[in-house]
C-alpha cells in the first residue's frame, strides 16, 4: 500500500540542522495492522504525519497506493488524505462547538458528499457505534472513552483504506482502551489498514508487527535500516 525510501525530516535550528527522521525505508502492505513504538522524541508522530500527508517538508521517496507522493504538490497530497486516510488522536481532538452528529459529518462534508447521503452515512455510523442516543451531545458532555469512540467513528466514517492512530488509548483507562483496540481489530479484519503509534506493549500485541524507532532511525521491524550506533 505504501513504500518509503530514504525519507528524512529535519528542522533548521540556527546554524545547525536537527534531524527528526533519518533515512526511513518502510513498506506497509494493504490490510496490515502495524504498530510504531519508540521513546519520546524518536519521531513516531512525525512519521505518522508524513504517512497522513499532513507534513510536506520531508525529503526522499514515498509511494502511496501507486502514487509517487514526493512528486505531488501539497494540494494533491491533501486529496490523497481525503480519499484514503482516517485519523485517530490521543486527545480525541473533537471539535468542541459541534455535536457528535456534526463531528461525524465534518469529514464527509470535506469530501463533498451530498447532504442527504451524508445524513444516511452518519445515521448508519451512529448505529454501528451505538451512539444514536448521544448524537446531539457536545464533546464536553461525553466521557473520555465515549469521546474516543466518536473520534474513531469520525476517522472511519469516510471509509478510509488506511487508519492512522496516534496513541489512541493514551488518555483512556484500561477497559475503555481495550474496547477501542477491539474495535481496531474488527476494522482491520474488515479490510482497513491500520498504523498506530503507542507506548503500550499490550496495544502493540493487537497488531501484526512492530516498528521500533529511536532518534529518528528505524532500529527494528521490517525494512529497518542499520542504526549508526549499531
Amino acid at each position: 500500500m505504501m513504500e518509503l525510501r530514504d525519507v528524512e525530516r529535519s528542522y533548521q535550528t540556527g546554524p545547525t540542522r536537527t534531524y527528526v527522521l533519518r533515512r526511513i525505508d518502510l513498506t506497509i502492505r494493504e490490510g496490515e495492522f502495524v504498530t510504531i513504538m519508540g521513546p519520546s522524541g524518536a519521531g513516531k508522530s512525525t512519521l505518522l504525519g508524513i504517512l497522513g500527508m499532513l507534513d510536506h517538508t520531508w525529503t526522499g521517496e514515498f509511494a502511496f497506493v501507486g502514487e509517487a507522493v514526493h512528486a505531488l504538490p501539497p494540494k494533491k497530497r491533501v486529496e490523497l488524505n481525503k480519499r484514503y486516510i482516517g485519523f485517530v488522536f490521543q486527545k480525541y481532538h473533537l471539535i468542541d462547538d459541534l455535536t457528535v452528529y456534526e463531528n461525524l459529518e465534518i469529514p464527509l462534508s470535506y469530501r463533498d458528499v451530498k447532504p442527504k447521503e451524508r445524513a444516511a452515512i452518519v445515521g448508519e455510523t451512529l448505529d454501528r457505534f451505538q451512539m444514536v442516543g448521544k448524537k446531539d451531545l457536545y464533546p464536553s458532555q461525553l466521557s473520555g472513552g465515549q469521546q474516543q469512540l466518536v473520534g474513531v467513528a469520525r476517522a472511519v466514517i469516510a471509509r478510509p483504506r488506511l487508519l492512522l492512530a496516534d496513541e489512541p488509548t493514551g488518555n483512556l483507562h484500561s477497559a475503555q482502551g481495550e474496547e477501542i483496540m477491539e474495535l481496531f481489530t474488527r476494522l482491520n479484519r474488515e479490510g482497513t489498514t491500520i498504523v498506530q503509534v503507542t507506548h503500550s506493549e499490550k496495544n502493540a500485541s493487537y497488531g501484526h508487527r512492530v516498528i521500533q524507532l529511536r532518534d529518528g532511525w528505524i532500529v527494528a521491524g521490517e525494512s529497518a535500516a542499520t542504526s549508526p550506533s549499531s
Partner: protein
Amino acid sequence: MTGLGQDLRYAARGLWRRPGYTVAVVLTLALGIGANTAVFSLIRGIVLRPLPYAEPERLFSVYEEHPQEGPRLASYPTFLDWRRDSRSFEALAFIRGATRILQLRDGSEQVIAGYVSPEYFRAVGQRPLLGRAFLEEEERSGAPVAVISNSLADRRLGGAAAALGATLRLGGAAVRVVGVMPPGFGYPAWAALWMPIASLPAADRSVLSARALHTDSRIVGRLSPGVQLDRVRGEMNTIAARLARAYPAEHEGWTRVGVAPLAAELMGDAEMRLLILQGTVLILLVICCVNLVNLALARGLVRSRELAVRAALGASRRRVVQQLLVESLLLALAGGVAGAVVADWGVGLLKRSAPDVLPRLQEVGLDGWVLAFTAVVALATSVAFGLLPALRVSRPAMLARLADGGERSGIGPGRSRLRSVLVVSELALAMILLVGAGLLLRSFDRLERVSLGFDPDGLVTLRVITPSPGYEEPGRVLELYRRLAESVGAVPGVRAVALTNHLPLTGASMNTQVEVDGRAAGVETESSALFRTVSPDYFGTMRIPILRGRGLQRSDMSQSTGAVVVNQAFVLRYWPNADPIGRRVTVFKSVQPRADFGERLDGTVVGVAGDVRHFSQEDELAPEVYLPYTRNPPLWIQLVARTADDPERLIPALRRAVLSVEPGLPVVGEGLWQGFATMERLLAATRAPRTFSSVLLLAFALTALLMAVVGLYGVISFLVVQREREIGVRMALGARPADMLALVLRSSLRWCIAGIVTGTAGALALNRYIASLLFEVSPNDPVTFVVVALILGAVAAVASLVPARRAALTDPMRTLRSE
C-alpha cells in the same frame, strides 16, 4: 463555494458560544463602521446628493469684484445692466431680502422675504411642489402673491396643502400663497418666502434705483447650455469695465465680476470639513481592523488545534480559509448592522443638537447609497481582519503541528514580527489623529484667548422690527425704540439697556464710505468703515472700554452736537501718529431704503473706543464709526440688555416688557435672530463650525487612542502568556520580579517609540490638510507633538504595566509544574 451553508451555520454557532469575543468584535466594528457610515451619510446628503435645482452645474452666483477690496453684492440697477448686456445666461435673477413681520393667529414672527425678479424660478430651475410660480401679469403689476418654503408651510401653516391659497398678513398687508416649494429648496438660504420684486412696498422701492446699495441681495444666473465659464467671466468683466466708466462714483475700481458655482455659496467649507472627518474615521477604522487582526491572530492560535484537526480530517486550505472568512463575514455583517444603527443615532443626535452646523443637514439620512457604502465597508473590513489571520493559521506548517504532537506551540519569530508591525502601526495612527485633535484644541484655546472687545456674559438681545403700517415716520420709530428700552430697563434683574443698528456676532453689518480730515500720508483717499449707530448707554452696557476722550452721551442724541466715536483700528488706519480727538469725519447715511440714503453725516471725533470683533473671534479688526442712533434712525434695531444673572431666565419677563409697549412685535421665532437670544448662544453659533470639527475630531482621536491602547494591552498580555514558561525558567534561575517587569516593558517601550516616530512622520505629512481649520497654530506646532507623544507614551506605559506586573508575579514552580 462548497459547504458554505454548513460553514455559515457552524460559524454562527461558534460565535454564539463565545459571547465575549463576539461582542468585543461587533462593538469594535460598530464603532469603526458606524463612524464611517455617519460621516459618509453627511457627505452623501450634503455634498454628493444633487442640489434641488435642475442641472445645478449650470447655476452660478454673480457678484462684483474689486482688485483690492474683494467682492461685494451688486445693486439692482447694476443687475439690470448685466441682464441687458450679457448673452451668456439663459436666465439671470435678482433677489432682494427684506425682514417682515408675519402675523399669525398664534403670534407674530420675523421672516425674510425674497423679492425676486421675473426670471427667478427659471434661473433656479425649480417649480413649486404645489401651486404655481408667479404669472407674468403678477410680476409686472407687483400683485401681493407669494410662493413659500416647505418648512414655513410645515412649521406655521399646517403643511403645504393647507398653506396653498391661504392669505398671510405680511408686513401689515394681505398676501396670497400661490405656491409651496419642495422640501429642501431654499435659495437664498435666508428666504422663507418669495414675492415679485414689483410688489416691494412703496417705502422700500428706492432700493430698485439705488446704484450704491450693496446689501441684502443675491444674483443667481443659469448659464446657457455649452457656454464656458471663461467666456462668461470675460463678457461680464467687459460689462463691468464699461459700467465703471459710466458711473465712476459708484463703480470706480469695480472692474471685475465674480461668477462662482452656486454650490460653493451654499456649501461654504462644509465639503472640506467633511472630507477631513472622513479621513479621520477611515484611520479609526484601520485601527479597529488592526485590533481585530490581532484578536483574530490570538484566537487563531488558540484554535490552531481545531484547524489542524480539520486539515487532518481532509479539509483543504481553501476550505479552512473559507470557514474563517465566513466567520469574519458574519461578524462584519453584525458589525455593519450595529454600525448603521450607531450612525443613524449619531446623525440624529447631530441634527438635534447642532441643526445649523452644516448646510442641508436636515436632509441627511441613511439612504440606499449610504447603506451600500456600509455594506462595502463591512465587507472590506471582514476581508481586512479575516483574510490575513486566515491565511496565517491555515498555513501547512501550522496545520502540521498536530502531526508532531503540537510540541512547538507558541509564537515563532515571524508571527511576533507581524504583531510588532500591527501594534506599531496602530500607535502611529493614533498619534496622527491625536496630533490633529491636539492642534484643533490649541486653536480653540488660542481663540478663547482672543478678546471680543466686549463682555458677552449676561447679555441678551432682541432684533426689533418695526411693524407697518404705523411706523413710517422716523420720529415715531425713535419713540418706539426709546419706550422699548425704558420698558426693558425696568424689568427686575436688568442692569443696563442699549440700542444699536448692528450688534456684534449677529452677522448684520453695513459699510459706509468715510472722509476724514488730516489723514496720514499714504492712506488711500477713499475708504470705508463699519457704520454703527448706538444709544448713549451702548458702551457701558456692552462694557466696551473708551480708550480716549469720552463715549456718546444723552445730549449727543440731539442732532446738533455731531459727536462721533471711532475705534482704535480706525485711528490706526487714518491717524496713526496723531490725536484723533476733535478731528472731522464724514460718513454717509446707510439706512436703506430711506429716501435720505447716502446723505452726508458730518461729525467730530469725541472719543476712541476699544476694538470689537464684529463677526467672530477670527475676524481681522475693522475700522468702526459710532454715531448717535438718532442721526440715522434704523428701520429695525437691536436691543441689548445686561442682566444681573442668567439672562436665559429673564427672557419671559423681557418678552412681556416688549409686548406691553407694542403687542404687534414678534418676540419668539424659530431662528436665532427671531426672538430673544443670549450673547452666549450667538457666540456659540459663530463658533459652531469650528466646535463641530474639533469635538468630532477629538472624540475620534480619543477613541483611536483607546483602541490602540487596548490593542497594545492585548498583545502584551498575549505575549506574557506565551512566554510564561520562559519567564518561569528565568525566575527559577534567579531573575527578580523587577527584571521580568523590565523584560516586558522593554518590548512595549520599543513599540511605543517606533509608533511615536512613525506617527510623527505621518502627522507631519498629513497635517497640512487641516491647516485651514487651525487658528494661530502651525500644523507642525512642536508643543502639540511633544505633549501628544508624552500622553501616548504614558497611556501605553499604563496599559503595559498590568500584564508586566502579572509577569513579575509569576510563580515559577506553578508554571514549570504545569509543563
